């Protein structure tokens, strides 16, 4: 049987997969886990594409699913007590961290700030959508992003990052 490609899925997937992986990698620090969670989330999207494509924000949906995959994978690691049982089993080793000041500064942020930063600046989601994905109030997103930018600016001085909304 040939590959059935749901109409409109592949361009969306091609465009969004790298952004989702980068966002998850920023949030988790684990490139392999990020790729696996993203692949699983897009597989779910493919499975339900007729519904997902009609959603107001398919991107928001796939980010929520991917984050749940990450949480589930982290919990399974504990449950199975086995690093070998990680979701990336069978795939190539995760890529090394880039030698980049901004990457290091972001990795030093608390987990929730990293996720907010990834969703805002990599996934390019608006604050209202970030609030939905993270399950927190919009005001809290703004506050979290503000704190994150302030900390990044401090850590990256004298690079003098410009704060933009």
């Amino acid at each position: 049987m040939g590959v059935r490609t749901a109409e409109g899925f592949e361009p969306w997937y091609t465009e969004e997969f790298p952004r989702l992986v980068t966002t998850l990698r920023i949030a988790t620090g684990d490139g392999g886990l990020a790729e696996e969670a993203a692949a699983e989330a897009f597989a779910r999207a493919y499975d339900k594409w007729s519904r997902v494509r009609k959603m107001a924000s398919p991107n928001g949906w796939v980010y929520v699913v991917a984050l749940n995959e990450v949480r589930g994978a982290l919990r399974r690691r504990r449950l199975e007590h086995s690093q070998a049982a990680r979701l990336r089993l069978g795939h190539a080793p995760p890529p090394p961290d880039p030698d980049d000041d901004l990457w290091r500064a972001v990795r030093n942020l608390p987990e929730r700030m990293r996720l907010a930063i990834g969703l805002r600046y990599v996934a390019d989601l608006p604050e209202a959508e970030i609030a939905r994905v993270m399950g927190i109030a919009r005001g809290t997103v703004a506050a979290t992003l503000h704190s994150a930018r302030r900390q990044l600016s401090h850590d990256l001085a004298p690079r003098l990052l410009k704060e933009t909304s």
Partner: protein
Amino acid sequence: MNDDFAQLSRLVAVTPRPMTEITDRARQRRRRRLEGTATGVVAVSIAAAIGAASLPGATHPGSAPTTAARGIGAGSPTTVFLNATAVAAEKQLPPQPGGFFYQRSGEAGEQTETWQSTTKPGLLLKSYGFQQVLKPRKVVAFIDNQPLTWEQMQALPTDPTALKARLRAGMRPEWRRSDQDMFEVIRDMLDSSQTTPALRGALYRVLAQLPSVRVLGPGTDPLGRRGEVVVVAEPLGGVRAMIIDPRTGAMLAAGGADLKERPVVGTPDPTSTPSYELSWTPPPNWTFHGKIDYNTWFYTSGYVSRVGQRP
């Protein structure tokens, strides 16, 4: 900042995996779903997995039921319940090292069974047919990410104050000040029945010392089992939760507040910059609104003499 992140994104960019992998995964998901429905292997559907706790006052999803939290402090219902649960946990049978530790748990519509030994190869079984041999592991528990052998676990103090200090020392530095992360570490340790009864009792007594922890009252897990719901308030809104069988001190299920819920009244102040890194305690009279979703639950566990045997 947008430009900086655009550059960073290019630096770590990945190529999308082939479409065939995505479609194969989707097909496998469909097949697992169908097999689960046809054979009843998957006992709980994904929908049921997101089961709502039946909390006092709870109504339909989307409404805002109010559950008065029962405060902590000497003689408070939370402290009384957790100390009573500690006594119940201490009366359970001790683990029997040497055999296989069996555990059956569920998550997102899938059941997992594991047989784990410290000396012999074990087995991992997923309800959709996945199997994996587990290497012998000396590790029987964790404090945060710090693995503990059987001997190390048995050497943990059972005085709650000393245990709390030991747990904090074993946690990653950025977690040490937070009740929420202590709750997470304790919940992880309660996952495993390999913890001794004395240690489980002590873990409940440590929970009783955390100001952000509350017992909300009776609830029901996704399998319909009744228990008491214990939560910790989150600084950015929401709660982490577990449901406990008060007769045995066993954890029935673990989860948290639904994404849409705004559970904690009085916090957070959206104009402030709440942080996980600072010690944070909710107001003494904080109140929970809404329902709790459980994403992991525990059917049974115990020691058996061989792989394939169930308690």
